[in-house]
């Protein structure tokens, strides 16, 4: 074997080594991403936690913080409806009635340009019919959100914020949220509206705490 041959061999081995390291790196990052995704769906305390010596300090069992979205940052992109790990998003529309104008022509309820202000399905902007409209006295109406129907798409939030008082807004509903380690909506939220908040202040409500739920 000449010197030249030896050099070529060691260069080939070197290249092979670099290639292998590269591939392993790629696989590792892929594994990391997938694990993150799997973890995102399965972090509830369960039977497996029984007897675990770390249970007390484990933030999966007793999370010190939870995910919440800041309505002031949300730009109503619609991804809260599509990006949650749950089939029906844990993000829902909340309504601070004290801020509401109780408008007859509600831009959170009617499609922009609706010709008739009736509750006919074609006039409503909510894609799931989750907003209930009730007559109070002329010309005032009250609007409530049917929590089970709401998918958190933010369409009504956009209309109310643009043309009304902004009394409709999104919140992560902690009765539904799995409190994933890495919230799959937060990862993609274009407004960076998601943050971890203390469990004791799990909602970022509009108004001075007069939020009346759904």
């Amino acid at each position, binding site marked *: 074997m000449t010197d030249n041959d030896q050099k070529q061999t060691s260069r080939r081995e070197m290249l092979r080594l670099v290639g292998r390291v590269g591939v392993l790196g*790629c696989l590792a990052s*892929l594994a990391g991403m997938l694990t993150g995704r799997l973890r995102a769906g399965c972090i509830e305390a369960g039977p497996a936690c029984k007897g675990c010596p770390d249970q007390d300090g484990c933030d999966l069992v007793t999370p010190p913080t939870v995910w919440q979205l800041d309505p002031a940052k949300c730009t109503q992109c619609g991804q809260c409806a*599509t990006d949650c790990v749950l089939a029906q998003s844990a993000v829902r529309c909340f309504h601070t009635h004290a801020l509401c*104008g109780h*408008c007859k022509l509600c*831009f959170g309820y009617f499609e*922009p340009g609706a010709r008739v202000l009736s509750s006919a399905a074609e006039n409503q902007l909510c894609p799931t019919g989750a907003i209930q409209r009730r007559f109070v006295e002329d010309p005032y109406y009250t609007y409530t959100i049917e929590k089970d129907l709401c998918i958190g798409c933010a*369409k009504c939030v956009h209309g109310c914020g643009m*043309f009304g008082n902004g009394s409709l807004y999104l919140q992560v509903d902690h009765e539904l949220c799995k409190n994933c380690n890495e919230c799959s909506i937060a990862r*993609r939220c274009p407004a960076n509206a998601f943050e971890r908040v203390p469990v004791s202040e799990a909602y970022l409500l509009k108004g001075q705490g007069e939020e009346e739920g759904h």
Partner: protein
Amino acid sequence: MKTRGIWIVLTLVAVAVVIFLSLRRGGPRVPQAYLYDVEQYREAETQVPLPYKETARWPLALREPRAVAVKGDGPVVVVGDRVALVLDAAGEELRRIELADEPRCVAVADVVYVGFLDRIVAYGLDGEKQAEWETLGEQAYLTGLAILGDEVFATDYGQRVVWRFDAEGKMRGRIRSASKSDGFVFPSPTFDVAADGDGLWVVNSGRRRVEQYSPQGKRGTMWGRSSMELDGFSGCCNPTHIAVMPDGRFVTTEKGLPRVKVYAADGTFAALVAGSVQLGQDAGLLDVAVDAAGRILVLDAADRSIRIYEEQPDDG
């Protein structure tokens, strides 16, 4: 050889998956049915001529400018933060009047009337405080001021009335809702008033119209229709502000789709001065005043400036 083939395939698969997952981040995957779409109404604004041009913009050194007024061809007064700025016709600051509280609205003749939440304070153009009028009560929430002859009128969103004062601040009466079924509706604090030889022009924004009143409170004509089209007013509460031009036409401003428009003296739509393209979608509330030369002064609170619009000669 075989091992190398497996490594190559593995590498390609891994790279492809990593690239796919990275690109998926934040991609546009939201169904159209979830999106609030007013593009066609914005588009309509671009299809009409704009007979007015923004000829100047005066930046304001105010954190939160609130209201603007002009005295004919005299000074312009802007209020915001805790100050009233007296400007000349070119926007240069002549005087700065320190205020004790957050101002809400302003009117100017030989006296500057500054409306606070529950009371009016009168200042001389030299900045001297002349009088502080009595409080209008805890429920008061003043949003607009107008001067008609030697009287001052103030819109009170909190109590849904237009207060009538003499020049010394003595209350002469109040204008209430014309009727319960067809009266004032204000889902938000957008209740403005302007005055001219025909009396008062009060914005009934929840009904998306402008109503004429005599100083004694008798309702006269009304104009304005509820519509997303350019000639109407949309949203819960529009127009938000109004001013009367020297020739009797009106200038109105709107929120939601921010618009400044001119209406003829009979209330028919005359022109778009500026729309959401010119003002930006986040313009917020726009107060408006018109000087003796017909220049339209729009207070753009988001931009912290006054935009000056002037009608351009018709080439045709």
